[in-house]
């Protein structure tokens, strides 16, 4: 399948009072047409920064793209001017934010907020845009859209607001949708509804989705492929099956073991000890080495290259080197296969 978005060796840094923080350190990713790619990792792993870099929404002048390319539709997004980028944002690539309580403008009716993008990108008149806004609200499952379109965000519940945010994001039929933790701020019961809605709309509109999350349950439910990020790098990528059933990276093992599940033999929930690396002073070796139960001397000194395990699975870990001792994944993964 053809790639709709390709990220090549992306480096992003923030300049802070404490010095340079290397939030993203050489990320390679591709997104295929119509697929959902999940980027998972804990806070500070660089997943949100990667997504904001695609949208070019990084705070200026604190953040800068140090190097790398983001290819979309034959254009390198990192080279576009702000004006050119504005044409792409919201029409070809759009974004769903984490917290629907704060991502809508409280003083503007939701109809107007949906219409803004339509009027800008599709040059619709006021009446047409309003009509389209009502259709969109209907599409995302908001009852009585003709009346709701005039209302303000505070008159909607959290779940309903997230539906509005989705309507705004999908207003112009974008080719790529970036969903940054779209359900984290919602009640569990609402989460499933929103995920179903997204899946449903993806089928209707053939949108490719980049799903940023730390919730592996969401990944299992939504994604076809997964990229695991740690310390500003992608440590393992693969299909959902590969990541859940044949993971090779100890960090992925850790993530999977720390995930609660219903039918597991053990009751314990395994945490990964330690804290993520300080990216203002990034480690020269594998960023996970200090927390890795299988760390070797080489891990501390050198960053491993990717080992291609299948057409779709790549893992950066020294354990896959022929000289490394054989290490079995924790029992919990070997036995159960996580999540599904």
């Amino acid at each position, binding site marked *: 399948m053809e790639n709709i978005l390709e990220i090549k060796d992306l480096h992003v840094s923030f300049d802070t009072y404490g010095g340079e923080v290397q939030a993203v350190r050489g990320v390679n990713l591709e997104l295929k047409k119509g697929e959902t790619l999940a980027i998972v990792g804990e806070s500070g792993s660089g997943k949100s920064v990667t997504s904001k870099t695609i949208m070019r929404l990084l705070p200026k002048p604190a953040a800068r793209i140090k190097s790398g390319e983001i290819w979309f539709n034959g254009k390198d997004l990192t080279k576009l001017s702000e004006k050119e980028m504005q044409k792409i*944002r919201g029409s070809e690539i759009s974004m769903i934010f984490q917290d629907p309580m*704060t*991502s*809508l*403008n409280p003083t503007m009716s939701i109809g107007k907020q949906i219409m803004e*993008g339509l009027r800008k990108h599709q040059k619709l008149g006021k009446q047409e845009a309003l009509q389209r806004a009502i259709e969109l609200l209907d599409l995302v499952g908001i009852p009585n859209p003709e009346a709701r379109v005039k209302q303000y965000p505070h008159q909607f519940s959290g779940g309903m607001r997230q539906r509005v945010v989705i309507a705004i994001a999908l207003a112009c039929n974008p080719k790529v949708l970036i969903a940054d933790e779209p359900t984290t701020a919602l009640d569990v019961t609402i989460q499933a509804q929103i995920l179903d809605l997204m899946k449903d709309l993806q089928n209707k509109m053939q949108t490719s989705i980049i799903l940023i999350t730390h919730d592996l349950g969401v990944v299992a439910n939504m994604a076809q492929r997964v990229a695991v990020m740690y310390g500003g790098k992608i440590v393992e990528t693969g299909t959902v099956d590969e990541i859940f059933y044949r993971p090779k990276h100890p960090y992925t093992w850790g993530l999977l073991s720390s995930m609660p599940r219903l039918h597991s033999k053990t009751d314990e929930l395994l945490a990964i000890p330690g804290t993520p690396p300080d990216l203002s002073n990034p480690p020269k070796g594998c960023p996970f080495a200090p927390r890795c139960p299988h760390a070797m001397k080489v891990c501390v000194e050198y960053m491993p290259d990717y080992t291609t395990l299948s057409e779709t699975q790549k893992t950066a870990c020294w354990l896959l080197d022929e000289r490394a001792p054989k290490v079995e994944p924790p029992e919990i993964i070997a036995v159960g296969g996580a999540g599904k």
Partner: protein
Amino acid sequence: MGRYIVQRIIYMIVTMFVIVALTFFSMKLLPGTPYKNQEKLSPEMIELLNHKYGLDKPLPVQFVKYVGDLLKGDLGVSFQFDGRPVTEIIGERLPVSADLGFEAMVIGLVFGLLLGIIAGLRRNTVWDYGSMIVAVIGVSVPSFVLAQLMQYYFAVKHHWLPVAYWEGPAYHILPDIALGFGPVATIARYMRTAMVDTLNQDYIEMARAKGLSRPAVTFKHAVRNSLIPIVTIVGPMAVNLMTGVLVIENIFAIPGIGDQFVTSVYTNDYPMIMGTTIMYSVAFIVVVFIVDLLYGVIDPRIRLAGGES
């Protein structure tokens, strides 16, 4: 909403009553008599005058009479201006103060918002620092110091502008600026804080993610929402300016209500002091009330919350 308004009106009435009572009884505590040339008056004359103005009756009776008259819109007569009704004097002087105050307010709003928006948008640049230096000076330097400085430099020393009085447009320039500088600074500071706060909100990023142009994000989303807190400070500020700022009218010899008030205080002109105080308080309370209602119109969140409370 209706219940909220009724509740607010009740508060306003209670507040007004407290103010009227407070003013009335403090006037009675004043030493001396309120009459012109009091040194020359014999005790008999004073008694006669007291009888004439009803000042010989017991205090509660006087108070009830005053409140009764007040409700009819009668503020009594000035002792100093040969028995002219207080309402007439206020009616004559208030328009001058309102004119001056309005012009200063316009200056304050235009330049204050402009400086605040620029500073908020270009945070930590020369623009920001420049605007905030102007704002700190404006907030800090008392208007009477600034007014004197300007009067001396532009009028006394260089004769570019008239020294005082309130006649042609040229006479307005110095007082307007002297009075407007404070509001410029206050509004600029509030607006900057509000802008910085708003620009950090998620919905601004969301608006950018929609592909809106920078001016559209700035004006439709950021500035509009930043104006909400400004409304609360602008209301009372406008009343303060329009009901006469004592020192500016004093310095530039402008025949406004503030200038009148100072004179009344010196001369123990009770009805005048009370009338001016009550008029000022009514204006203040009513404007604060209107601002609160207006707040609801601008910020849809309050509209509902106000209705529920």
